[in-house]
Structures are given as structure tokens and as C-alpha cells.
């Protein structure tokens, strides 16, 4: 675990000072970030760190941020958070699902500190909020593109763990790929890791050897892109734009955009208007962005994909709109019906047509 303290240099202040100048002078509002991975992963943790940098730049002197990377989920996380708070942190941002119990344990001991927990669901104390993004909305757009781009009609999907956000992603991508290309088949590999470049590369190779020519990934490294490049297959950026692989194999991306959320929450805490929330935002709030669709994708597909994106962002279309059956054929949504957020957030089944089984 590395603990680094970043204090902004005077030159970076010019724009930011206006926002929080009232408290800027003596005691900056300190936000401590703890990550399970490293900020150099070019994926999940990297995008959270980009959010932190945006926070820093927005408030200038008024906000100071502290980062702890590669913190194990569990007791060690409690220790790190406690240490940060004793060191003056006024807000803790924990960016991994597994930090949940530790966040709530520490929150109970420090009722005056604000806690923001990414992708969590435990809010045992009034000073704990959770936040998440509707990644499945982005997957719908990627699925649309993939359905158009595949020639073998086999689409590969490197999945991490069978948890709701991954299952939503597979379902959403599949529904929108089959919408434009009913012959599409999905092949899913459970990598059972969020981050292991070697396994991710092997999994991509295995899918390509099985005939897949478009690869999805719900793991964090760019390794599948390097494999796809060699094989002439297509892939999508995950969490981060991964634009170094554009225009091919990377033909688009789902980009996480946490900065505005962090700015909003820090502002609320400084203003005294912070309230417990369970934010679940998507394309309409720009919590996720669609990475530029590259010129490897035909013009009309780019246009239809962006039209799909816009209709989701405007609220006009929900990626899960009935009729949709569950994998075993039982009806889930009737014609025109859309799911409530509660059950959707806990999604634990695949939709009809998918042949993948729940790992474990």
C-alpha cells in the first residue's frame, strides 16, 4: 500500500479558487480515496483517480486529496480509512464493492466524516452514501455495434464474476446485438478475476479460437485488445477509453466519468447539504460516456448507435424493455414493460437465448 499526499501547486489554482474560497484559506476539505487496485491499471481504478484529479482541479486550494492504492478488502481497509481520518480526512471515498463492511464499521466510529462507497449497497449509518453507474446502458450501445460488426456471428465475452452488474452487462449487450442481428451467439468465459492480464489475454485467444470476431470484456486490463489486434478481431474499451487501440481493434468504449459526482458530493459536504443517497446514474447524467466510435465502424452503424445512446440518455428508451423472457423461458417483462430499479440492481439471471450458465 502506498500513501501519497498531493497538494496542488499554486499554478493550478487559477480556475478552481472561486468555488470554495470561503474555507480555502486555512483548513482545506480533505478527501481520502482508497482503491483496491492501482491507479495505473488504465481501467477501473484509473478512472476513479481521474475523478479525484478533476475534484482537485475544480476546488484548487479548498480541497486536498489523499490516495491509498492496492488496499486489501477487509481489516486492512479499516485501518487505512481510520488512519486517513485521524490524519484529517473529512470525506472517505472507497471505490470497491468489497470495502462495504469496512466502510460501515469506520463510519459508525466517525459520525462526522462523510463516506462515499462505489457500487455498494450497505448504508448502515446516516453518513454513508453509495453510488454506482448504469454500465448496462453503455453495454446496450456496444451490443448494437457488435451485432453489426460480427461476421462470424459469434461474439466473445470475458466476464469477471457473476455479480449483478456483470450479468446486466451480458444481458444488455446480448439483447441489443440480437436486435440488429438475430443470428448472433454469445460465448462467455468467467475469468474469475478483475485484473490478470495474462488470463485475460488467454481468454481472448480462446474466444477467438472458438470463432469469435468481436470481444467484450468486463475485466480491467487492455490485454484482450492486444490479442484482438493480432487476430483482426474487434474489442471495446472498458471503464477507460483505451484509445491507444483505436481505430481497431478498439471500436468504441464505455468510459466511467466519476469527476462530476465527486465534485458535487464534496461541494454538498462543504455546504452542509450532504445527504445520504444511493446514486445510480448513467448516460443521462454523463456518469458513463460512450467513447468515440472509430472509423472502422460503418457510418450508418455509428449513427444508429449514437441514436440508441441518445434515446437511452433522454429516458425515452430503457435497455430492458419487454417482452423479455428469462433464460429458462419464464416471462420477465411484458410487452413495453421496464423493470424497477430495485430488482434490476439485483439481477441474478440471464435472458432467453443466452446459453451461458452462472459461474459457480
Amino acid at each position: 500500500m502506498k500513501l501519497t499526499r498531493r497538494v496542488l501547486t499554486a499554478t493550478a489554482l487559477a480556475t478552481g479558487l472561486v468555488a470554495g474560497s470561503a474555507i480555502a484559506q486555512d483548513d482545506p476539505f480533505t478527501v481520502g480515496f482508497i482503491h483496491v487496485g492501482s491507479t495505473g491499471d488504465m481501467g477501473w481504478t484509473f478512472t476513479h483517480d481521474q475523478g479525484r484529479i478533476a475534484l482537485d482541479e475544480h476546488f484548487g486550494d479548498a480541497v486536498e486529496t489523499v490516495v491509498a492504492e492496492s488496499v486489501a478488502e477487509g481489516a486492512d481497509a479499516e485501518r487505512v480509512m481510520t488512519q486517513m481520518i485521524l490524519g484529517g480526512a473529512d470525506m472517505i471515498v472507497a471505490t470497491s464493492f468489497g470495502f462495504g463492511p469496512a466502510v460501515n464499521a469506520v463510519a459508525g466510529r466517525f459520525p462526522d466524516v462523510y463516506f462515499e462507497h462505489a457500487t455498494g449497497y450497505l448504508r448502515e449509518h446516516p453518513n454513508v452514501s453509495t453510488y454506482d453507474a448504469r454500465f448496462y446502458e453503455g453495454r446496450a450501445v456496444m451490443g448494437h455495434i457488435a451485432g453489426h460488426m460480427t461476421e462470424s456471428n459469434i461474439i466473445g465475452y470475458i466476464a469477471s464474476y457473476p455479480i449483478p452488474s456483470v450479468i446486466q452487462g451480458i444481458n444488455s449487450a446480448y439483447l441489443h446485438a440480437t436486435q440488429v442481428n438475430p443470428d448472433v451467439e454469445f460465448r462467455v468465459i468467467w475469468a474469475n478475476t478483475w485484473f490478470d492480464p495474462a488470463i485475460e489475454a488467454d481468454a481472448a485467444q480462446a474466444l477467438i479460437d472458438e470463432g469469435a470476431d468481436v470481444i467484450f470484456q468486463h475485466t480491467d486490463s487492455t490485454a484482450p485488445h492486444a490479442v484482438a489486434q493480432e487476430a483482426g478481431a474487434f474489442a471495446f474499451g472498458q471503464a477507460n477509453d483505451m484509445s491507444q487501440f483505436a481505430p481497431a481493434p478498439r471500436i468504441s468504449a464505455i468510459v466511467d466519468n466519476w469527476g462530476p459526482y465527486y465534485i458535487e458530493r464534496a461541494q454538498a459536504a462543504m455546504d452542509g447539504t450532504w445527504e445520504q443517497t444511493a446514486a445510480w446514474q448513467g448516460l443521462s447524467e454523463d456518469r458513463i460516456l460512450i467513447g468515440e466510435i472509430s472509423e472502422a465502424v460503418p457510418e450508418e452503424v455509428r449513427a444508429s448507435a449514437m441514436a440508441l445512446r441518445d434515446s437511452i440518455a433522454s429516458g425515452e428508451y430503457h435497455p430492458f424493455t419487454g417482452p423479455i423472457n428469462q433464460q429458462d423461458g419464464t416471462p420477465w417483462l411484458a410487452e413495453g414493460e421496464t423493470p424497477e430499479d430495485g430488482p434490476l440492481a439485483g439481477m441474478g439471471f440471464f435472458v432467453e437465448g443466452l446459453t451461458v450458465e452462472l459461474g459457480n
Partner: protein
Amino acid sequence: MLIDPVTLVVALIIASTPVLLAAIGELVVEKTGVLNLGVEGMMIVGAVTGFIVAVETGSVTLAYLAGMAGGMVLSALFAILTQVLLSNQVATGLALTLFGIGLAALLGVGYPGSTPPRVPDIFPQALQDIPIAGPILFGHSAMIYLAVMLVATVWYVLQHTRTGLILRAVGESHDAAHALGYKVIRIRILAILFGGACAGLGGAFLSVARVQNWIEGMTVGAGWIALALVVFASWKPWRVLFGAYLFGGISALQLRLQAAEVNVPVALLDSSPYVVTIIVLVLISSDRARAALNAPASLGKVFHASG
């Protein structure tokens, strides 16, 4: 759909090579009686130095040399601490891994996402196009063949040369070797440097050829698998090769079984490389009397000339 055996074999050979390189180096180190648990750290430093040089110079050969140098520098630290300052090998090795991971992260800042040069295949396309044998035997970059040649060389040197005899003597009884006039410390330091170079090379192969990117923490335990392989292979070079290919093979196979939608529980598939490799290597080394003979008798023991 059936699994295509040709692509499976190709995948397993590539997947196994980083671990194989690290393991064969560690085998030599352990044969001289030194236990270096820092393989993971040396691998990842090799991965980052190799990748940096690949990006900066565009030369794959220089990248591999840089990976070897990176691993060697780290192993030199281990050699000084354990051989000159007589520190505990287990603790020093573990510290070396932690240090290596941190150092690599520091060195690699700014490099994730850079594009390394393409690693060339060495055989002409005509040979690679031969059905079945082409992709398996001729479809790889030079390092794959060098790794196998390295195993053969290590086996030959250890088993059939005077140098090998001296190396083994130092590992079996450093006091006896010392009494015979062999420079125990010097021989061990050289072995440790060789091990570091091999681990660094394995790391460089991983970042430059296999993943073609530098990502922090990218070895994710490959060094530990290499260490385990040496023990399960009962310190025999060809068994290290067999173990590495078996481990890589089952890993590649389980991913393919998933892709082909064969109905086997994922948890079982996922653990299979570890389980199968351990079972097989335990079985082939099940003659306990002979297996015990293979473990270097002075493994992990501190040597001091006055003792």
C-alpha cells in the same frame, strides 16, 4: 463444438513460457542451496525494464536483455544481503518481491498503454502453413525455442558437466564444498544472478511478447507458480518443462471448455490447473526416498566460511 487441439497447444506453449523461464532459473539457484522467494519481484521488474526498453528502442532483443538486466539487478541485491551480510533467505526473498512490485510500479509510470514493437516469428510463413505441425512447431517467436533450449542446457550442465557437479556440491553440502576449495559464496552469487536474469527474462516475455503492454502488478502470482513448480518437479529440469506446459495447458484448456460451452462447473475448471499440476507432479515424484534425495541438502541454509 470440439476443442481445436492445434490452437490449444499453441496457446499453452505461449502461456507457459514466462513461468518456465522463471522456474528454470530458480531451479539452478535452489540447486546451489539458495532459496530465493523473490521470483515474483524479479519477474515484474524484468517486465517493466523490458517493456520500457522495447518502447524506447523498438528492439525486442534489447528489451529481453534489459529484462534480464532488471531481474539481475534485483537479484544482486538479494545476493549481497543473503550471501555477504548473511541475512535470512526467506525473509529477504519475500521483501524482494514486495520491493520489486513497488519499484516496477514506480519505473513504469507513464508507460501503460504504450505500444511495443511487434515480436517477429522466426520461421518463414511457408513452414508455419504446414497443417498441424506448422503452427505448433514453427509458429512462435525466438524466445519460445530459447526457453526450451535453456531447459536442455541446464539439464546437461547440471547432470553431465563438472560445473554442474560443483553447483550441486555447493547445494548439497556447502561445508564439504568449501573444504574442497570451492568458493561457495561466489558460486552462489553467480547462480542467484542467473536466476534473476531468467526471472527478468520471463517477465520481459510476458510484457513485451504475450500481453504487449505494461500494466502495474501484471505478473499476478506467476513468480509463485514458478517457485511451486520447482519443488513439485523435484528439482529436475525436464519436469519443470513438463509441469509448466501442463499448468499452461490446463489453464488454456479450461478457458476453451468455457468458450465451447461444455457443461462443467466453472469453479472446478478454474481450480483445475492447480489441482491437476499438483496431483501429476506428486505422482511422478511419489517415490519418497528418491524425491528426498533430489532436494538440495543445504537448501536455505546460511553459509559462513568460519563455520
